[in-house]
């Protein structure tokens, strides 16, 4: 057990000993509009991914508020735990039928918190059994080096210099964009990404009581 811990520590210290470099991505769609919620991840090619420890930080959570998931896209390193607090006035029934993680959190009351560990990299789509319009994505990545683009389409990742497999993912992207990059410690690397997104097909939550059947 001691040996394992030591190994882990070494693995952790190894890359961090190298000087960090910054990768900055600007994500747009093919109409030139900034794309938010795009996930940029850098998977090291020179180190075993399973040797990478999750970064220490505030706990990750996907809340249910006002009958919506609080973050549409959440990125976690494989092995992370996500908390699902119900901060709503109604019960929710979270479920996933995704390969990366199949689970359900049966109807639970406002005020309760549930949690799930996501250990397999991949996309996990979350729904709610009684509210069709509730939708959230969890992208589980095998690396601690990732970022989600903000409203301006900017995402920046700080990682040690080295070779990486760069992956850009978005819920409406047909296939994940993959390429190889090399980060040198000299200066940050800037890259522009233009994504061809599928149309947004999310179920719109109808205004309460204003539905009419005649289309």
């Amino acid at each position, binding site marked *: 057990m001691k040996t394992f811990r030591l190994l882990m520590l070494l693995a952790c210290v190894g890359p961090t000993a190298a000087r960090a470099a910054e990768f900055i991505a600007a994500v747009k769609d093919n109409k030139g509009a900034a794309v938010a919620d795009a996930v940029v991840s850098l998977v090291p090619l020179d180190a075993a991914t399973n040797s990478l420890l999750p970064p220490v930080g505030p706990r990750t959570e996907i809340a249910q508020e006002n*009958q919506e998931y609080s973050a549409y896209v959440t990125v976690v390193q494989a092995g992370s735990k996500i908390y699902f607090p119900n901060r709503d*006035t*109604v*019960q929710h*029934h979270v479920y996933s039928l995704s390969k990366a993680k199949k689970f359900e959190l*049966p*109807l639970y*009351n406002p005020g309760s918190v549930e949690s799930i560990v996501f250990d397999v990299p991949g996309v996990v789509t979350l729904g709610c*059994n*009684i*509210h*069709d*319009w509730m939708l959230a994505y969890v992208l589980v990545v095998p690396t601690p080096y990732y970022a989600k683009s903000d409203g301006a389409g900017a995402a920046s990742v700080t990682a040690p210099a080295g070779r990486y497999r760069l992956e850009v993912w978005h819920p409406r992207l047909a296939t994940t964009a993959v390429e190889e990059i090399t980060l040198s410690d000299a200066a940050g690397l800037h890259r522009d990404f233009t994504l061809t997104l599928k149309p947004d097909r999310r*179920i719109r*939550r*109808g205004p*309460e*009581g*204003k*539905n*009419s*059947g*005649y*289309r």
Partner: protein
Amino acid sequence: MRFFRFRHFSSKLLLLLAGLMALVQVAVYLLISRANEAAAIDHIAQNLQTGALIFRQNLAERIAYLAGSAKVMSSDYPIRQLMMQDPLDPRTLRSALQTYSDRVRAPVITLFSLDGRVLALSDPELGEENAGPFGDLIKQATRDDMEQASGYSYLAGKLHVLVVVPLYAPAPNVAAWFGVAYPIDNKLAQAIKSTTRLEVTFTSDDPEEKTPRVLTTTLDPSMAAALALHKMAPKQGPLDSEMVTLNGEPYLTLFQEIELLGEAPVRIALQRSLNAELAPARELENKVLLISLAALAVATIAALWIARGVSQPLHQLADHTKHVAAGDYTRRINLDREDELGQLSAAFNQMTAGLAERDKVRDLLGKVVSPEIAAQLLQSDLQLGGEEREVTVLFSDLRDFTTLSEKLPPTEVLALLNRYLDRMSAVVEKHGGVVDKYIGDAIMALFGAPVAAADSAARALAAARAMGDALDDLNRELAAEGKAPLAFGIGINTARVVAGNMGSKTRLNYTVIGDGVNLAARLEALTKSPGYETAVIVSEATARAAGEVDTLRPLGGVTVKGKSERVNIYAVDIKSRPWPVRG
């Protein structure tokens, strides 16, 4: 009785052609227009019936759809999970119902307990107080153990179609009821309009309401308000339509009713504008009208042209006729036509030529024969044969004319003779006598023929005396000219003779024949006898006829050549001149 007479043939023809044309076209136009309208009304009526069926079908399908959707909802897993909770969580239930509302696109989904209490309502604005009609349906379904129940009612004042289905746990055990409602609103009206092309109007038909409300309509609001107030005509069949005029536009309208749950029924008006339906036909009618007007114009022009073609030559003919009537035969009509009018003008020209010829003949006849004989000839059929009548025949003869003619050149002889004959003839004609013929220098004149005259003898005597005067005048002229005077002898007899046309079939004379005529000639010859000392000898018959037996100088009886009887003769002493010097 004729109120109007055409002064012109052209206006008659024009009126006839153009009038007939217009009549036919107006008739055609009216027929087409009527047929179109009848067809349009028929078509609309059929559309309305189909529309009514489609409308009912539409509602039935919606009910079926709602019921089917509600059945799926009622067997949904989460709703069972929620229903399992005790106590129930109304908020979560409501959020779940909103999901269902989105899924089935029904704005109102309500969950009821078995006793009809509202457990949750998808529409927060729709209060529980509006759930009453659902309660009625649930009672009905419970009572009749139905798998679904449906009906129509107002929810918050708006017309809805309502369906309730049971939430089985499991079937046939009912754990709760789902109530689903669809508004019958403008969207439905528009949906029906888009499939049927009919105007759809729903009005409340509540007898307690003074003015029926317009619930929903595809019409203009003011028209819909007018329609709401319209009193339905009594119908014979449920699918009979009636004509309703809205804002001056006729709409064929089919009224239908929907029974409501515990309330007065709702009236549905399905309509189609007659004008809209007729629009393509009207377009056609307008084209027909244009063509008709064009044809009428062409017909008018054609009629005018034809009329001119007929009336102009007729005018010419009329004009020509006036000239001919006035005796002008020199004019000719020149119509360059092959038709009947051309033939007529040719005939007219021939007639004019004929008239001119006849006139010429008449003129010539008058010169050749005396005017009376000419008239007699022209009047009668120119048949050979004559009639017996009493006439007085006068013979005159110049004395010694043969001797005279030998002394003078022939032209002068003829001139002198003509001068003499002209004077004598004038005197004879003046006294109603007719010169029958000239025989060399002799004149044979008739009195009482061809025109009968009672006083023929007196006329003849007067003529003889006047002839003497005329001869005196002529002799004075001749004397002045240094020419020798003339002398004549006259014999007059009155007798019954035959008067008529004599000669061959191709050439004939009007004359008289008989003993009496010969006697006159013989009497004239007697004047040559110096013993009688007279230039004029008349028979007793003439003297008696003239009533002058007592005044005339009797010369006694003579037996003339060829006559057996003696004839008493008388001398008429004419003042003119002594009785002939030479024999």
